[in-house]
């Protein structure tokens, strides 16, 4: 296997790790005000993600770094082309990170209400924007012969050769992301919290699951319509069908597992569903990495954007070690904080 393809898989792995891990704390944020009815309950909800969210977010940073060195031309073209939306992502990440960390420092209810609402809103908007970003990558961007592009936030809300960041399709993907991530958060809180908070989380699992599936079906149909490349890829390499089929099975397992009281397995199944959704998109486009909305022949391909093989081979010596360690740390800290604390932390 070419070393660039290896890094394509590495990148997909990090992004899936990001969606699964930061996904549950984003989802917890989206549902925060719905699940917790008073300050003690809010602290309880936040305590399920308190020591974990920051490490989860590092998967995004690591994915950014991996994209930077393995596919510098893609990193350069896409980050500058998505200039404004990325800046909005950064501002949302800031508001969210600060809100979750500082809200408990001051007992005043106004302070806590403000940062609770800021945390919840920024979580929701982030899930939406990340979905929109994925939608943009699948739909394609107006990358032309000069190999760069700059997308406006919106044009006429239609897909086409000169779309905006926001169009009906990317907003559909964004909405799907919000609901799917909220479901992920509900499964997480049901797994990690106790008492009334847990009960409320269990109550929203079912309706969110239904909404997520309806949206996912609509979004998948739209994706095939908007990006014919996905259909061609599935036809050319039917092994790619394994991702959506397995994803569908994983999502169908969730209500069964919830009913049997297997909260951990239900969370794992939904994690698998989210990862496979991402894998469907990634391997549906490969070897394209960013389709062109102007002309399919102008799409950015992995061969065009990859770093020199010499650089990549150096990267391949340390990357698996570093990410392996990161997975060990992540597993350790999740295990350490698995049981509810018997007394307040210092």
């Amino acid at each position, binding site marked *: 296997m070419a070393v660039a393809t290896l890094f394509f898989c590495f990148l997909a792995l990090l992004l899936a790790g990001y969606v699964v891990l930061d996904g549950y704390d984003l989802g917890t944020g989206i549902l925060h005000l719905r699940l917790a009815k008073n300050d*003690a309950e809010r*602290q*309880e909800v*936040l*305590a399920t993600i*308190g*020591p*974990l969210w*920051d*490490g989860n977010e*590092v998967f995004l*940073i*690591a994915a*950014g*770094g991996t994209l*930077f*060195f393995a596919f*510098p031309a893609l*990193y*350069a073209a*896409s*980050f*500058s*082309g*998505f*200039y404004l939306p*990325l*800046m909005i992502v*950064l501002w949302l*990440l*800031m508001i969210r*990170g600060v809100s979750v*960390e*500082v809200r*408990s420092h*001051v007992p005043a209810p106004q302070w806590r209400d403000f940062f609770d609402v800021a945390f919840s809103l920024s979580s929701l908007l982030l899930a939406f924007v990340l979905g929109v970003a994925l939608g943009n990558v699948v739909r394609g961007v107006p990358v032309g012969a000069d190999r*760069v*592009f*700059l997308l406006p936030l919106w044009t006429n809300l239609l897909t086409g050769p000169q779309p905006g960041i926001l169009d009906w399709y990317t907003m559909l993907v964004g909405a799907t992301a919000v609901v799917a991530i909220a479901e992920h958060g509900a499964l997480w809180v049901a797994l990690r919290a106790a008492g009334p908070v847990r009960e409320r989380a269990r109550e929203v699992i079912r309706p969110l699951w239904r909404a997520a599936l309806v949206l996912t079906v609509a979004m998948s149909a739209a994706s095939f319509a908007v990006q014919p490349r996905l259909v061609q890829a599935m036809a050319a390499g039917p092994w790619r069908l394994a991702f959506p089929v397995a994803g569908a099975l994983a999502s169908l397992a969730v209500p069964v597992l919830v009913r049997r009281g297997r909260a951990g397995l239900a969370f794992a199944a939904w994690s698998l569903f989210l990862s496979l959704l991402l894998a469907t998109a990634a391997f549906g486009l490969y070897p394209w990495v960013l389709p062109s909305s102007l002309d399919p022949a102008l799409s950015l391909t992995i061969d065009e954007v990859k*770093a*020199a093989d*010499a*650089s990549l081979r*150096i*990267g391949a010596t*340390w990357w698996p070690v*570093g*990410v392996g*360690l990161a997975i060990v*740390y*992540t597993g350790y*800290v999740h295990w*350490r*904080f698995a049981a509810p*604390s*018997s*007394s*307040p*932390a*210092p």
Partner: protein
Amino acid sequence: MVDVLLLHRLHFGFTITFHYLFPQLTMGLAILIAALEVASYLRRDDRLHRAARFWAKVFAVNFVLGVVTGIPMEFQFGTNWAEFSRIAGGVVGQTLALESVFAFFLESTFLGLYLYGGERIGRRGTVIAALLVFAGSWISGFFIVATNAFMQHPVGYRVGPGGVLVMTSLREVLSNPWLRWQYPHVMSGAVLTGAFAVAGVGAFYLLGGRHLEQARIFVRTGVVAGALASVLQIFPTGDSQGRMLAEHQPVALAALEGLFESGPGAPLAIVGQPDMLARRLDNPLLIPYALSFLTYRRWMAEVKGLDAFPPDEWPTNVPLVYYAYHVMVGLGTFFIAIMLVAVWLLARGRLERSKPMLWTLMLAVPFPYIANTAGWFAAEGGRQPWVVYGLLRTGDAASRQVSGGNALFTLLGFMGMYALLSLVFLFLVGRDIAHGPEPEQASGVDGR
């Protein structure tokens, strides 16, 4: 009309300057907190542990600000400096990815354990977590400085097809001779910020007659660490950095020193204002022959001035780097003086009663921030007009299709956001300091 390049430079300059206010304290406090925890564990002295926990509260707020202002740095290479990313990404992308993979995961995981772990991990676990947070933050600093060292003095690469830089040896990149002195210099600068903060808050309590037991620990820890770091800052790390500059970036050295004319027995300018039209220093206060001696260890050595180079190779803003450098060196000299006197008083057991010294320590807290910032201005401004020295000019590095209007919009957005973040930070840390290191009542699950 302000030109687009300047806006991109201001964008990066503003966000990195604001960002680095936080990591310098993170790295400085991380080593002091780890030292306090280790000492507390070995001597079974719970007071030191409580001192560490107090600073961990400040650390935690500071760390979050460092994280949320740090993410934009990695993104901005792509958003605003796409050509730089495309050309140099094969090398600098790798050092940045190394940072996230080997440092950030370590740091965030064990900070979570250190802050929230409590009885889950026990006393020994607390010490280990503190040490790993320290390791994570210092490894992070290493990869960032390694990235910068490559930009200052590229090694371990070749120029590939289309002019892109290809990494040929990670070992060479990570053992860059530039990095060998820049890294300890940056780190001891961070220790200075941490040490002055710890000593300054201790002095504040002693002057107010509050929290005396903890205040003594703070002052002692801060002064000892500060004395060591302030000396290391100038010698050998700063001195060696200067000689590295003379060897590899002589034009930057000339600009930093305000040396317009080449010649043997070059003087060292203590003060003076660069007059760029007349190409001389106004109102100079010079130490004859000193620059030659400091640079080459020979009084009559020839030092190249700005006149030895064509003006388009001069740093783009000579007065800026000249002043930044002089502010840094001037403050560094004061730090040595303050800390050595403080250590002497401490050794004689008189520090606690010396009001002038306690006032000095308390008021000195902001100055290491200024010195660290000025040092980076000198290093980064001195490297201009290059973004990767000798290989890629800053003017060729920005994103081609991002307009000035877009860059200005987001620059203003960052300014507004950072103004608000500053208020939150100062309010929270001020509150923690006003409250002091009393035994905490449990403030809920979040615990801090």
